[in-house]
């Protein structure tokens, strides 16, 4: 116990040294003033000390503690209870807009949009194992295709929705072709570069995209020619996003169990073995990119219709990072996990205002924490769990030394 405390104190002192300049001193080089914030150092030291001692205690009692958070809760495996829970959830989701203000509905719509984006990215990252850091580019393609088609040709929402999805899919294939040969980490960087190129073009090509000022006055989706009040339109978009979400969940689940879905998972696990089994690597990767991108494109169209305004500032790398952290936290490859991840990540900062400033800080910390402590996310991937290979288990034991 004494040794633990000493270790905790040592770590705390190290972190106090580490954060000394950034946390304590705040300078204004123009007016030549300095603010010393020594209290920060004390708080930080105390927090690190407690976290280290508790963390070390937990990691020593890992096996006993992990019983509290098994991969699938036994209650959820009960089919009747699962069905009951689903019905309750469906009712809640349907009735939600009737009892809450437009503001609340808007937030929920955003959360659902991120859930769909997460599910789309999940196809690429979770199932096919291709780390895509430029996912927001396809979202931008969808949003801008609706905005521009509407501006130039007066195209309506319902015509733009499939076109946006299709255009995004085409961009997905365009990006997919050149990067087919690349390995995981190079792929990540190229997709990141691709996403930034799309954003920079939107920002600088004024004749095409109206530059940083963006495009305003995009019409909301129509409903058989009815004119809706703003409140009704918000509610209508909520139901549209909910519907899209349900369709996405259905399609993604079916895809995962289909021939192509199994090919994705095989590709993720071992590319060479997968090719040896006769799976066409090119086709498999390209469909993953195209299908993942098409969801982003459709959500992009919805986003443009919801905000009635698009500009390049909505499509920064930060958005890609948020969507990726949703997928990572939820559990790569798990549908339920991604939906829960999106709701947690988008709703929590909205309702805990004090916490909103720390949102991105926590996103980053959670991404590291999940990878180090629980790589399978909140809800582990069911397929991975069902076949525990003795070899893989042995490998992991070695890895944890």
């Amino acid at each position, binding site marked *: 116990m004494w040794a633990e405390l000493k270790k905790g104190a040592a770590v705390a002192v190290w*972190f106090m040294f*580490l954060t000394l300049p950034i946390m304590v001193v705040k300078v204004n080089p123009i007016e030549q003033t*300095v603010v010393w914030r020594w209290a920060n150092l004390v708080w930080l030291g105390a927090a690190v000390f407690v976290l280290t001692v508790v963390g070390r205690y937990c990691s020593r009692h890992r096996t006993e503690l992990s019983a509290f958070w098994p991969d699938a809760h036994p209650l959820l495996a009960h089919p009747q209870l699962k069905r009951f829970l689903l019905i309750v959830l469906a009712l809640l989701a349907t009735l939600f807009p009737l009892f809450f203000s437009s503001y609340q509905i808007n937030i929920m719509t955003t959360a659902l949009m991120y859930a769909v984006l997460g599910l789309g990215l999940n196809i690429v990252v979770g199932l096919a194992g291709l780390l895509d850091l430029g996912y927001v580019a396809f979202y931008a393609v969808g949003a801008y295709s609706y905005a521009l088609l509407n501006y130039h040709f007066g195209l309506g929402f319902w015509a733009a929705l499939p076109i946006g999805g299709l255009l995004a899919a085409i961009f997905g294939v365009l990006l997919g072709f050149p990067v087919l040969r690349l390995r995981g980490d190079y792929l990540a960087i190229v997709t990141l*570069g691709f996403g930034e190129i799309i954003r920079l073009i939107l920002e600088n090509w004024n004749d095409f995209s109206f530059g940083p000022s963006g495009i305003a006055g995009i019409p909301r989706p129509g409903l058989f020619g009815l004119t809706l009040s703003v409140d009704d339109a918000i509610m209508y978009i909520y139901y549209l996003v909910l519907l899209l979400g349900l369709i996405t969940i259905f399609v993604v689940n079916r895809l995962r169990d289909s021939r192509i879905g199994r090919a994705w998972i095989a590709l993720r696990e071992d590319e060479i073995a997968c090719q040896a089994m006769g799976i066409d690597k090119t086709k498999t990767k390209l469909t993953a990119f195209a299908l993942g991108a098409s969801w982003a494109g459709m959500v992009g169209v919805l986003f443009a219709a919801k905000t009635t305004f698009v500009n390049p500032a909505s499509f920064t790398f930060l958005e890609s990072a948020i969507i990726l952290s949703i997928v990572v936290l939820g559990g790569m490859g798990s549908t339920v996990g991604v939906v829960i991840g999106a709701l947690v990540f988008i709703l929590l900062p909205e309702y805990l205002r004090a916490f909103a400033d720390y949102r991105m800080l926590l996103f980053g910390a959670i991404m590291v924490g999940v990878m180090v402590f629980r790589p399978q996310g909140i809800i582990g991937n069911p397929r991975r769990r069902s076949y525990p290979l003795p070899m893989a288990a042995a490998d992991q034991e070695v890895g944890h030394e």
Partner: protein
Amino acid sequence: MEYFLELFFSGLTRGSIYALIALGYTMVYGIIGLINFAHGEIYMIGAFTALICATVLTIWGLPPLAVLGLSAFAAIIWSAAYGLTVERIAYRPLRHAPRLSPLISAIGMSIFLQNYVLLAQTADFVSFPALIPDFAWLEPYRSIIGSSDLVILLTTAVVMLLLTILIKGTKIGRAMRATAQDREMALLLGIDVNLVISVTFVIGSALAAIGGVLIASHIGQINFAIGFLAGIKAFTAAVLGGIGSVPGAVLGSLLLGWTESFATGYISSDYEDVFAFALLVLILIFRPSGILGRHHNQKV
């Protein structure tokens, strides 16, 4: 001709800074095969530490040269400490995990560090004091090369030389090369691989800190997000030269610096960053192993 020379030297200055950052990427990649996404943030933290230190010391009334030296020293010390800590927290536990895990962890670390500085310091651009003095004898050539350009070039050259001596001539350098070639074999031969990896992170971070101080002093302002773009560009440079290769990183950085400088000078400055990204995408498609990199066959 004068315009050409101006662009040539500004490209060379840019390239030198990229080289200082790119070396960190390439050394880490050479040893543990990981793209250290948080490396750009280490550079940013180096610049911030130098800013804080320089302002405090100026207020305390130290002479400018002492301020420059001490702030650069502080930046190196703290950046190295951050590099060491990041490796210990985010990468070491994942050394045997699937390839994607450390990469995602690195991206998380990068986001964390950016927002840490954003919250602890400020979201605005902060003006950085001009630490490098103006040399009077350079006055006639001011339009072609400034004194901070000259200091950057000389510092980079000296640092490269020291690094080469370290890698080629010292015991730890030999251990680093051995670990890069075959980590398990190095372990069997009694090399403390964990120590070697830590040293690599410390050296890479120190180089990034030097780059951070120099560029911040050259440009005159910094904010919490400068590491992202600088990191991507330095990574591009490292890949261009062949990731894992130290001379390759320098060569790639200079090429990238010139490409950017001439492209913005002769074509358009709106698309400055697009050139770098487009170059990156093109290299990875046509020659993923880079100019000086070796091609690795994938094995089962």
